[in-house]
């Protein structure tokens, strides 16, 4: 086992705020970032099964990026660049004092440049002008686009790759960064998970897949309700989360502020079904168990679980079953919260934003509420789930992220002292 790895910087763009301070304040206050879907040109919105989304509403690209980047980059890349810059500033990492080849970038990107893809495809067929297709389309649509942009923006010349595992991409990116640093491939890794796929096609397709909530189209703020009996699917969100991971010796040497330790990680496949988790939760339990072993800790030590909990009927239930199976009696003692209750499912950003919420909980001794948890579903009821903030000194926390394609990931974050 290599060096210990710590978190020294955070950045976020979310439906409840841009910037970690704003995000965390809103999360603790139980703010909902879910709103009615904006018009999609002339498409009939009433034909969409789900018309609620976790949209980043206050994001002005021109306020953060230069004019051409604000105009041309795909929205997910803009989110990612902004979150990455906040995290780097927060960590006080000075690139001119770093060995550039020792600073890597690992991005979790599930859908990539969907916004741009749909726009350009539509334009091509409407205008019939192949000679006017955006020349930046190809470098934007490749899944590693954001990784390249971040490296260029900050001069990070270390390993640079993108992990695409749907909704667990962000968590996998953190896990792979942990392994890159442990194996001495890099001293610092800028980790970003980003997604911006609230597009006419993607919202329609998640709808026809029967993955989205459709019961609360007239009450958007109530639509994302993990663990509640009235839940009926997830709410499509968007955003980005960024974390600076570095080896403990490196962080100490430059006297960086240390938020928490990334102590363990596990990645597995259920090899079961493309979109549905295995009913008994055994695979999720196994993944969490492996992450705890990797962190050299054990179920009785766990204080908090930042659940994947997307607000789908089956997913939430299976995850709690997995937690019960793994933690046994401890399951009644741990705190559990679902960040998606406030922001919806931000897809490949979810694992990173969940890890940020967990880091903030470790730092501030308080766990954010699971909003809309009004009528606990007996199938996934545990005493540690609450619609109010809960105070607790957290030493060990699990962050779960599960993705389409039958894949699971768990991270273990520890208090650093």
């Amino acid at each position, binding site marked *: 086992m290599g060096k210990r790895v710590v978190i020294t910087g955070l950045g976020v763009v979310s439906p409840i705020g841009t910037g970690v301070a704003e995000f965390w304040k809103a999360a603790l206050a139980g703010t909902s970032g879910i709103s009615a879907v904006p018009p999609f040109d002339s498409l009939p919105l009433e034909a969409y099964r789900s018309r609620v989304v976790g949209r980043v509403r206050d994001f002005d690209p021109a306020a953060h990026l230069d004019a*051409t980047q604000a105009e041309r980059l795909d929205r997910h890349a803009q989110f990612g660049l902004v979150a990455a810059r906040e995290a780097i500033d927060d960590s006080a990492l000075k690139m001119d004092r770093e060995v550039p080849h020792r600073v890597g970038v690992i991005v979790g990107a599930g859908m990539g440049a969907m916004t741009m893809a749909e726009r350009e495809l539509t334009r091509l067929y409407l205008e019939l002008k192949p000679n*006017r297709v955006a020349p930046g389309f190809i*470098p934007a649509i490749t899944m590693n686009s954001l990784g390249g942009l971040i490296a260029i923006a900050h001069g990070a010349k270390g390993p640079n790759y993108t992990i695409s595992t749907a909704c667990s991409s962000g968590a996998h990116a953190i896990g792979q960064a942990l392994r890159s640093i442990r194996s001495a491939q890099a001293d610092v890794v800028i980790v970003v998970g980003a997604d911006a796929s609230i597009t006419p096609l993607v919202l329609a397709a998640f709808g026809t897949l029967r993955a989205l909530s459709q019961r609360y189209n007239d009450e958007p703020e109530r639509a994302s309700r993990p663990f509640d009996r009235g839940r009926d699917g997830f709410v499509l969100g968007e955003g980005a989360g960024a974390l600076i991971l570095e080896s403990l010796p490196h962080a100490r040497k430059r006297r960086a502020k240390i938020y928490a330790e990334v102590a363990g990680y596990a990645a597995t496949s259920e090899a079961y079904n493309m979109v549905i988790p295995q009913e008994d939760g055994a695979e999720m339990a196994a993944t969490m168990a492996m992450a705890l072993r990797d962190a050299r800790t054990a179920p009785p030590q766990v204080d908090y679980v930042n659940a994947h909990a997307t607000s789908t009927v089956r997913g939430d239930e299976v995850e709690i079953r997995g937690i019960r199976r793994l933690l046994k009696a401890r399951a009644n003692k741990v705190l559990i919260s679902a960040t998606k209750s406030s922001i919806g499912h931000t897809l490949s950003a979810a694992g990173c934003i969940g890890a940020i919420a967990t880091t903030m909980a470790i730092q501030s001794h308080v766990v954010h509420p699971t909003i809309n948890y009004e009528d606990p579903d007996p199938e996934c009821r545990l005493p540690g789930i609450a619609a109010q903030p809960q105070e607790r000194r957290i030493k060990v926390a699990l962050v779960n992220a599960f993705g389409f394609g039958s894949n699971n990931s768990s991270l273990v974050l520890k208090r650093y002292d």
Partner: protein
Amino acid sequence: MTANNDVAERLRATVAKELKQDVSSITPEHTLRGDLKLNSLDAIELMFRIEEEFDLSIPDDDMQGFVKVGDVIDYLHRRLSGEPAAPAPKTAPPVAVAAPTTPVFKTAAAAQRVTPTPKAADAQSRATPAPKAAAKKAKPKAARRRA
């Protein structure tokens, strides 16, 4: 206002609009790459706007000669006065300063080498593995599987 000035004004306005800058900040002396900070992709987008605005098509060879805004203005004058599209005679910069006078399309032209020309070999091998080599590798495997 003379016709010449009109072209210059329209071009400056087009550039300003594309770069989201005030038209007064665009002068014929500005270099596209150095002063206006256009990268190769930005420059192609700009050419789209110019082609639409002036209703003409600018061949890639002609674009190679554009270093300054003034080069584009001169080129448009020639084209609009009936001169056919052809490699523009390069205006020799008074002093050879490496970076700012580099034609902005140099890298763009390289990126455009996706048509199979002998020179494109490098760009292609970076983008995708050579199909022939892949086919060669795949064949025996598939054959084995069938057997």
